[in-house]
C-alpha cells in the first residue's frame, strides 16, 4: 500500500503547528491533581491553561522548514494567508529575524508570554536554526517561556540540548502507538539516510516518540501530546494513546480534528478523507478525559501565528515592518512584568474563588435536567464581549447540574481555498448557523435583527443580555432561565420538535 501512498503530491509533516504554542489547555479543575510545581508552569501558558488563554498571548516563529517524516494530512507547499492550520506559514525566518520579531512582538504586546517553534516542518529536523533561536532568546528575553513541538523522530537526540536552553514545555504529536494504525497516517520516514516506508517506518517513529517522552519526563520537562483525530483511521485508537502517554508521564492530551480539504493538496484532502464532526470530537475528548487531562481550546494555529489564541496578528509583524522597528526590550521588560503580574493576580483570584464562580442550579425534588450546549462570542478576558457579527469563532460551553464546563470552540470562518472556492456556496450566516449545530443558545454582546431571526428559526436562542459579564456566570444564568421557563422539562423537547415539524 505504501507505493500508492507515495504516489501523491509531496509534502510533509505538519504536526507541530498547533503543538507547541498553538494550542490548548485543560481547565483548572482538570489540572487540580497535578503537583503544584507543574500547575505553576501551566497557569500562565495560553496553550496549556483554558483560563490563561483568555489573557496571555503566544507566538510562533517559522524558522524550521525541513521535515523528516511525511504525514498524510500535510502539504506545506500550499500557503494561503487566509487559512490557519498547522504546517502553514507565509514567511520563513532566519534565527536572527525570528529573535528580532519575537522581541518586537513581546515589546508591543506585553501579554505575550510564550514563544514556540512549531514548524512549518519539524523543529528538531532543523536543529541549528531552532536552537540558535532558543539560545538567543533565553539570553535576551528571559521573561519569555520557550516551547517546541515535534513529531518525535529526532527527539531523543535533542532532549539534553532542550533542557540546556530552559525549554520546559515540549509537545509531541503522537497519532498512534500501533504501527499498523500508523501505516495509514505516515507513508514514510527519513531515517539513517534511508526512506523507510509503511509499518517498518512507523514502528521506528513510535519507538522514538515514546523514548523521547520518557526522557523528557525524567528531566522534569512538561510534555503535552497532540493527536490528530482521523475518522476511520485512528479515532478508535486514540483513547489507547491517551492511556499510554499518561502512564508515561505526559500531563495533557490535545485531540485535534483532522483538517482535510482537496484544495490543500494533502493526501487525505485529495482522497476525500473526512474530518470528525463536532460531536465525534467532543465524544472522543470526553473518552480520553477519563484517562487524562484533555485540552479543548486548541485553535490549531499556524506555524507563524501571533497574538491571543484564536486571533492572528501576524500581518502586523511581517518582517519588512519589523526591520524598521526600534525595539527597546530593556524598557519593555518592566511593563511586561507589570502586565503579567496583574493577569496572574486576576487568575489567582479566580482560582481562589474570590471571583464568583457560578454554582450549579438547585434541582428541586431531585429533578435532573439534561445538559445544554451554548455558544459564546468573546474577544478575550473571559467575558461575553463580542458582537455576534464580528465573531470569527465561538466558544462552546456545556451547562448542566454539575455546573459549567468548556467543551470546545468552533471556527466561524471557513478555510480559504483560494480562487473559486472562496465565497461560493452557503452564505456566511448560514455557515455560522451550521457550525453552531447542537448549541441551544448563543451569547454575545450584541446581535443584529436578521441573524437573530434566522438563529431562532434554527433553534438557537440568541442572547445579548449578558454583555460584558463573565462567561461561566452568564451561561449558568441562561441555563437557570431555561429551567425556570420549563424549557428543560421532560415533555418540552418533544413538544418543541413536534411544533417544528
Amino acid at each position, binding site marked *: 500500500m505504501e507505493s500508492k501512498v507515495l504516489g501523491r503530491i509531496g509534502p510533509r509533516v505538519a504536526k507541530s503547528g498547533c503543538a507547541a504554542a498553538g494550542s490548548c489547555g485543560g481547565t483548572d479543575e482538570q489540572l487540580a491533581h497535578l503537583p503544584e510545581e507543574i500547575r505553576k508552569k501551566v497557569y500562565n501558558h495560553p496553550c496549556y491553561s483554558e483560563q490563561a488563554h483568555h489573557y496571555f498571548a503566544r507566538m510562533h516563529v517559522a524558522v524550521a522548514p525541513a521535515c523528516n517524516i511525511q504525514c498524510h494530512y500535510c502539504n506545506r507547499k500550499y500557503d494561503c494567508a487566509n487559512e490557519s492550520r498547522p504546517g502553514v506559514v507565509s514567511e520563513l525566518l532566519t534565527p536572527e529575524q525570528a529573535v528580532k520579531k519575537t522581541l518586537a512582538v513581546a515589546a508591543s504586546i506585553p501579554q505575550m508570554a510564550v514563544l514556540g517553534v512549531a514548524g512549518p516542518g519539524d523543529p528538531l529536523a532543523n536543529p541549528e536554526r531552532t536552537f540558535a533561536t532558543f539560545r538567543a532568546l533565553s539570553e535576551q528575553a528571559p521573561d519569555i517561556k520557550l516551547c517546541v513541538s515535534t513529531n518525535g523522530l529526532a527527539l531523543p537526540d535533542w532532549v539534553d540540548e532542550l533542557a540546556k536552553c530552559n525549554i520546559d514545555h515540549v509537545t509531541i504529536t503522537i497519532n498512534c502507538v500501533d504501527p499498523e494504525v500508523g501505516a495509514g497516517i505516515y507513508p514514510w520516514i527519513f531515517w539513517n*539516510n*534511508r*526512506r523507510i516506508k509503511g509499518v517498518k517506518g512507523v514502528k521506528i517513529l513510535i519507538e522514538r516518540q515514546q523514548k523521547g517522552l520518557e526522557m523528557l519526563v525524567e528531566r522534569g520537562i512538561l510534555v503535552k501530546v497532540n493527536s490528530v483525530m482521523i475518522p476511520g483511521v485512528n479515532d478508535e485508537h486514540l483513547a489507547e494513546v491517551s492511556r499510554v502517554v499518561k502512564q508515561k508521564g505526559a500531563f495533557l492530551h490535545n485531540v485535534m480534528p483532522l483538517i482535510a480539504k482537496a484544495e490543500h493538496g494533502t493526501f487525505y484532502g485529495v482522497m476525500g478523507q473526512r474530518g470528525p464532526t463536532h460531536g465525534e470530537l467532543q465524544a472522543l475528548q470526553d473518552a480520553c478525559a477519563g484517562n487524562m487531562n484533555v485540552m479543548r481550546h486548541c485553535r490549531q494555529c499556524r506555524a507563524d501565528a501571533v497574538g491571543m489564541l484564536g486571533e492572528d496578528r501576524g500581518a502586523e509583524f511581517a518582517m519588512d515592518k519589523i526591520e524598521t522597528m526600534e525595539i527597546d526590550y530593556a524598557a519593555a521588560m518592566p511593563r511586561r512584568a507589570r502586565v503579567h503580574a496583574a493577569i496572574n493576580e486576576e487568575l489567582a483570584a479566580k482560582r481562589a474563588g474570590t471571583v464568583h464562580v457560578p454554582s450549579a442550579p438547585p434541582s428541586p425534588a431531585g429533578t435532573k435536567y439534561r445538559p445544554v450546549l451554548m455558544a459564546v462570542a468573546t474577544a478575550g478576558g473571559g467575558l461575553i464581549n463580542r458582537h455576534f457579527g464580528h465573531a470569527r469563532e465561538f466558544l462552546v460551553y456545556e451547562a448542566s447540574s454539575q455546573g459549567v464546563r468548556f467543551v470546545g470552540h468552533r471556527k466561524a470562518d471557513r478555510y480559504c481555498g483560494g480562487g473559486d472556492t472562496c465565497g461560493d456556496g452557503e452564505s456566511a450566516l448560514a455557515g455560522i448557523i451550521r457550525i453552531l449545530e447542537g448549541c441551544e443558545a448563543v451569547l454575545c454582546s450584541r446581535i443584529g435583527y436578521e441573524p437573530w431571526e434566522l438563529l431562532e428559526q434554527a433553534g438557537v436562542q440568541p442572547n445579548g443580555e449578558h454583555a460584558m459579564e463573565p462567561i461561566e456566570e452568564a451561561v449558568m444564568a441562561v441555563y437557570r432561565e431555561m429551567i425556570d421557563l420549563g424549557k428543560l422539562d421532560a415533555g418540552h423537547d418533544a413538544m418543541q420538535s413536534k411544533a417544528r415539524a
Partner: protein
Amino acid sequence: MAYKIIASQCTGCSVCDPECPNNAIREKGGTFFIKPEKCTECIGYFDDPQCVVVCPVDDTCVIDNSVPRYEARV
C-alpha cells in the same frame, strides 16, 4: 552525472541541503538547485540518493539527462 531539482516543485524547505554528502546543493531565490559538477548521485556514500529520498515532493529531485551519468572511479 547528476540529479537536478525541478524548481517549480521545490518548496524551499531546505531538507535536502544538509543531507547531501557532496555539499552540492545551493539555494537561489527561495528554491534549491544541485551543482551538477559536484553531484555523485550519492554513489560511494549511500544506497539511495539522499535528496530523492528526503524530498517531501515526489519526482522533484530527478536525474538530469543533459549531463552524463556519474561513474564511480575505481
